[in-house]
């Protein structure tokens, strides 16, 4: 039910924005013409889905989709990746990737610290050599020039 409401809000937002952009006329379609049509249809289908799930819910309660899942691990990984995306241009590829890899290798199970550090170091170094040196990909250098 929550997802249908999300799509309903999304479609209404797109609908408002497409009206602002201008939908024009069938003879001369405007910038927001397609988005207007697609969001209008999406809104209708979201309502249908909402009604469908509401009617189904009356038939009995359902288990949460996150029940029995380690969703916190996903959340931590996502936060780390967002920090990485923002920090990489400042800290540089080598430092930020080493820190990210250390976190990701550590997050799953209590690995030994030396194993985590060694794996992260090797992964960072090999990926840097392959992509930056061999394939000539451009990575940010960061404040240490690394």
């Amino acid at each position, binding site marked *: 039910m929550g997802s249908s409401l999300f799509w309903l809000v999304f479609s209404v937002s*797109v609908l408002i924005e497409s009206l602002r*952009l201008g939908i024009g006329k069938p003879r001369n379609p405007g910038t927001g013409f397609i988005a207007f049509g697609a969001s209008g249809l999406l809104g209708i289908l979201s309502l249908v889905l909402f009604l469908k799930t509401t009617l189904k819910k009356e038939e009995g309660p359902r288990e949460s989709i996150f029940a029995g899942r380690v969703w916190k691990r996903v959340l931590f990984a996502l936060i780390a990746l967002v920090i990485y995306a923002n920090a990489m241009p400042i800290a540089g590829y080598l430092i930020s990737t080493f820190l990210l890899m250390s976190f990701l*290798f550590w997050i799953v199970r209590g690995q030994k610290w030396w194993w985590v550090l060694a794996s992260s170091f090797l992964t960072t170094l090999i990926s840097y050599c392959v992509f930056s040196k061999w394939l000539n990909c451009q990575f940010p250098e960061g404040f240490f020039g690394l």
Partner: protein
Amino acid sequence: MGVFDHILLGFQVTFQPANLLFCAIGVLVGTLVGVLPGIGPVGAMALLLPATFKGTPTSSIIMLAGVFYGAQYGGSTTSILVNIPGEASSVITCLDGYQMARQGRAGPALGIAAWGSFIAGTISVIGLMLIASSLSKAALSFGPPEYFALMCTGLIIVTYLAQQSVLKALMMALVGIIIGNAGMDIVTGLPRFTFGIDELTDGVGIIPLVIGLFGIGEVFDNLDQELENRQIFQTRIKNLWPSLKDWGESKWAILRGTIIGFFLGILPGGSVVLCSFVSYAVEKKVSRNPQKFGKGAIAGVAGPESANNAAAQGCMIPLFSLGIPTNVMMAMLFSALIIHGIQPGPLFIRDNPDIFWGLIASLYLGNVLLLILNLPLIGIWIQVLKVPYRILFPLILLFCLIGAYTTNNSSIDLLVMLLFGTAGYLMKKFVYEGAPLVLAFVLGPMLEQALRQSLLMSQGSFMIFISRPISGTALGIALVLLLSTIFPYMKKRRQKYEEFKE
């Protein structure tokens, strides 16, 4: 130039050392991602796409196509040995393939999967060669209304054949059109849905979107489960060459699978997954011993494995002759061609004979390479399967990050990828499919252009889509399909209401 000259040209192109190398890399990476759970061929194609920017269009397409059909081969290995399909198209192979492995017949199961795929791939290449060039000649008479109608019908068929809810698939297609709409309007030059971010003026990039949905989303989905080491079926794999008895039981299954896969693959939305299921159902129906299916029948492996490889090549026909990708993998090939400045469509084969015939020849060569790779390298693939996921997932995430970043050297692309990664994870949880979204995202700008041109042609009358025979028929099919999903639901609700009233 006749067909024979074209084939010669194709082999000349393919046997150039660079193209040969790209073909080998493509099928190797494809087999690897087919074997490994956690990243599929779509994600792998998106990851490799930036690496092809410096290469020629021919090399790029040869490599990406290799990833696609290589993954079909690789997926069968995990289905047979671990009972975990590496790819959705190999789900059905688990039923009999794993049972064969349990009976000590993993070798013949893997062997017939590889041989069936090779034979199906070879026959399909000939079909592709014959049909694509004829269809592209016919497509020269298509105008914007026909293209609009065909694209709409393709999208409707993709949603109709969705593995989960058709309603949700339809919603995803609409979301894809909206996202594809972001960026600068090609007619007025005005920015749309860019939120003031300069990087979004060119629209949302296909690479961060696909890597996010199919790479990051998949990793997140695996990450929230308890990561246990997979149990590989411990058996000595021997007799990879199927016996004469095995061949006898499989030969017609391979042929039927090839025909089913190839023709279903041509249809819009005719996914490789669907073909393998249809082939299995047909084999069970025509078998003299249907009770053997699910208990280790070799025809239950040979048919679907042939079908999914034939479909992988059949679905290239609409892309190269009409310029319309019919599934998400073809959408990736389409994007690769566009990035290299080549427009797929009716003139594609005439204007780019080296790319088209080079690709055709590479498909044939790729099938030979896969046969060489799959049989002797099975031991290595099994070792790859034993790599624990706790080591694998940080590496997959790193490849995703590098793939998204190196496209434009922009951290905005990383954030876009993470946004779609989160969306992909939640979509899996709420049972929404990503394929209709990506296909609609790629078709969106073309759909808009065709709609606008059609309306300008007709001075604003929507009747132009109905009055022209091809577009009218295509839209009629789409309408029938939509109604066919609504009526059974209405009937069910009505029955429930009647029961409630009583």
